[in-house]
């Protein structure tokens, strides 16, 4: 299945905006580990959004999902 991924801030060093081809049944946790090489990158754990909704790591992804990785927000 195909998942569209995008990452912000420090995660953009590791993950460009792209479509990845992955196996069916993949969880958000699996995808984060594939993309970042672990559940954090440079000491920062990502917040994950799937189709613009905040997601936990156990969610099972579906074909066509859009996944966004962000660090803690930094408004102001």
């Amino acid at each position: 299945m195909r998942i569209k991924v995008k990452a912000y801030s420090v995660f953009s060093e590791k993950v460009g905006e792209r479509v990845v081809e992955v196996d069916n049944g993949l969880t958000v946790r699996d995808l984060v580990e594939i993309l970042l090489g672990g559940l954090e990158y440079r000491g920062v754990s990502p917040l994950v959004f799937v189709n613009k909704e905040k997601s936990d790591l156990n969610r099972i992804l579906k074909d066509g999902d859009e996944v966004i990785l962000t660090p803690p927000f930094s408004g102001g």
Partner: protein
Amino acid sequence: MVYVSVKVLNKEENISLDSIISELANADPDHYVGGIGLFIGLVKGKVNGSTVLSLEYSSIKDLAEKAMSQIAYEISEKYDLKGVLIYHRVGDLKPGETTLVIAVAGKSRVSVMPALAETLERVKKEVPVFKLEHRSDGDYWIIGDSTRIPRKTG
């Protein structure tokens, strides 16, 4: 009934104080409002002894506007406000340029000032906005409120 206006603005889009005041005043025809609290955020020119060249903001625009709207409605209900505006700017901003404007209109300072402070704290934590600080000693991602990580390039 509360008037709420939230926007993610590009660097080129101006923010007019007069229009903010008139928007809030026009939304209050019975003149319940006794005060408007205003916060204007600016890019600082010095951080940790280094010169800031610019602060590059990015956001997830639709999620940011949704989050700001939720904050505005919740704060207005908590403090019985008549109007809340939150305008967050994105793009590459230089020291002294405006990053954020928050205006809250309510009955008196007793509700307006704490509402303003609480709105600001929530915007900093709950709105998906991200910063890359360009400084004389390199580029730094700002994570959360103040953690800085040197940007890796190449």
